[in-house]
């Protein structure tokens, strides 16, 4: 017997379907196992953050002590004094610039590949994915020399190489997005009187927006967290947050500063991830879906 869901209330799988399907019904033993595994996984992810957060507020934390022996903000003051804020700003800018360039490039490549408009598509997608397979160090060592000979300014070189490093992620993400994208929407819009430009802004981009957001996030991470390319091509003149973290981490007794810098390095991706989770949905959620007219199937039934 199916229980009727009150109008306006969200239907979750548990409400009426799970109990009817043998394969989806949680078994007691399986349930305990799943909770255990979930707990262990959470601990695995969260545990490294605990000492980091403790060091954030510690002035001294000698080896055998379980908790810091002296609390304070010397880590914060030291980080600020060593240019953490400008480094943070540089990293943020670098991440945003890389995302702003790599996302449209990746989207265009993915659309062309998905539509079959590219000759030798396997070769092209292989080349686009190559930066993933090649160790960054190898490629960068050679390219540094090329860029130096070509008199490309360090900052431009860093951006060019980071965009190349981000392309595999944006292309892959957008190929997934375009595989689910239906070109007939754009044709329909054209027959309704929309110019190609209007189709792009009013139909095409809104439909692939969640994919664009995901790929921009990944491209941002490439720029935000890069160390190798920034230090080698930039020649140490562009001091970003990862460079600052690395220079402090290689010294002794800087645990508090490293902790402060690391925590601040987590924040922007975390904020972006939360924004993505909130706004990156495929379609607006339908409030009416649970109503009596909710029976919706792609074809056939009313």
């Amino acid at each position, binding site marked *: 017997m199916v229980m009727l869901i009150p109008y306006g209330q969200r239907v979750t799988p548990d409400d009426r379907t799970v109990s009817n399907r043998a394969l989806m019904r949680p078994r007691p033993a399986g349930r305990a196992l799943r909770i255990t595994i979930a707990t262990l996984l959470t601990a695995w992810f969260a545990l490294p953050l605990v000492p980091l957060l403790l060091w954030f507020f510690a002035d001294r934390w000698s080896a055998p002590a379980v908790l810091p022996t002296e609390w304070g903000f010397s880590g914060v003051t030291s980080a600020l004094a060593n240019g953490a804020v400008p480094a943070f700003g540089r990293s943020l800018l670098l991440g945003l610039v890389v995302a702003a360039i790599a996302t449209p490039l990746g989207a265009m490549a993915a659309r062309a590949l998905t539509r079959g408009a590219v000759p030798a598509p396997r070769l092209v997608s292989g080349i686009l994915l190559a930066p993933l397979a090649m160790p960054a160090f190898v490629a960068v060592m050679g390219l540094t020399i090329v860029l130096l000979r070509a008199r490309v300014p360090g900052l431009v070189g860093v951006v060019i190489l980071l965009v190349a490093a981000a392309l595999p992620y944006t292309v892959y993400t957008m190929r997934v997005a375009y595989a689910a994208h*239906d070109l*007939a*929407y754009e*044709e*329909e*819009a*054209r*027959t*309704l*009187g*929309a*110019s*190609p430009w*209007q189709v792009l802004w*009013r*139909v095409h981009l*809104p*439909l692939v*927006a969640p994919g664009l957001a995901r790929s921009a996030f990944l491209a941002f991470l490439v720029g935000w967290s890069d160390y190798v390319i920034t230090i080698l091509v930039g020649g140490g003149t562009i001091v970003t947050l990862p460079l600052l973290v690395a220079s402090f981490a290689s010294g002794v007794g800087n645990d508090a500063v490293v902790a402060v810098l690391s925590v601040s390095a987590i924040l922007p991706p975390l904020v972006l991830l939360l924004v993505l989770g909130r706004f990156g949905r*495929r*379609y*607006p*959620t*339908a*409030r*009416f*879906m649970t*109503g009596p*007219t*909710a*029976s*919706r*199937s*792609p*074809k*056939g*039934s*009313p």
Partner: protein
Amino acid sequence: MSASLALDSLTKTFDGESSPALNEVSFEVEEGECLAVLGPSGSGKSTVLRSIAGLDAPSSGRIFVDGSDVAGLAPEMRGMAMVFQRPLLFPHLSVLDNVAFAGTVAGQPKRVARADARQFLDLVQLEGFGERPVTALSGGQEQRVALARALAARPRVLLLDEPFSALDPELRADMHTLLRQIRQQLNPTIVMVTHDRDEAAVVADRVALLSDGRLLQHDTVERLYTRPVSISVSRLMGGRIELHGEVRAGMHHSAIGSVASPGGETWAEGPGVLVVRHEAVHISTFEVAVPDGMVGVEVVVTDRRARGPRAEVTLACGDAMMEAEVPASRPLVVGQRATAHIPRSACTVVPTP
């Protein structure tokens, strides 16, 4: 808002294909007329529609709207709105904004476009659905919104690409009624692609029958059924009676005897196939005089198949086979002798293939 449309030997060969998808198709659609492009799958009927809409460029041939050639015009400049088999409602817009899409892209202020869209939602009997997301609609409602969205674009020609074939029969009948009302109120010129000859018969004034990219016959629905120009047309329209014979002195001679052509028509002399709709054949089991304008044929029932309220029977007359339909309640059994009455007005002769 409506316009006339003419196709002049439209040909389309897709890249890498040897045979054309469309082969010299020509027809005309008058202002306010509804033409059904009918044909089996792969006959090129969707290509006709996509060429008219400007979504596919024809290899050769011309398309005229109100007498002017639309070659080279981008789809958005042609003033055609298309409704596909899938509703293709923009998922990021509300129902109302979907219908207001054409107004919005034409540069109307949002308020004006929405007020206009509301009228078209009323027209398709979806008052008050405007604020809903498109995910909250049923299949039939989605297709109504798609129709309203196309009509709100004030198309010179409304193009329908099998718009109702994904709906169940009851909803499809509702949509046919709705389309009839829309035609009465707005009188748009409509070209509708369908593979369903019943749908074509219900909705259209005239039908263009396509097969393998060729236009077989462009005629009224009734003439397509009763006056097919070839054996393929007869077969595609579901005709089942084919009597091979010869026309001599205006009479067709075959296994069922000689049949004179209906008044005002002449049949070409020489070999020819007499075709007649099985629905037109009356079966009489009593001794009656053959009525005027009918041909009487002595037959034996050789097969009977139940079809719900009707029954199909196969009749043999010598070597020739005929089909007929009777009410399921009629006690006609295999082996029984009967007289088949065929109205002469229902007969036509097509060339022997």
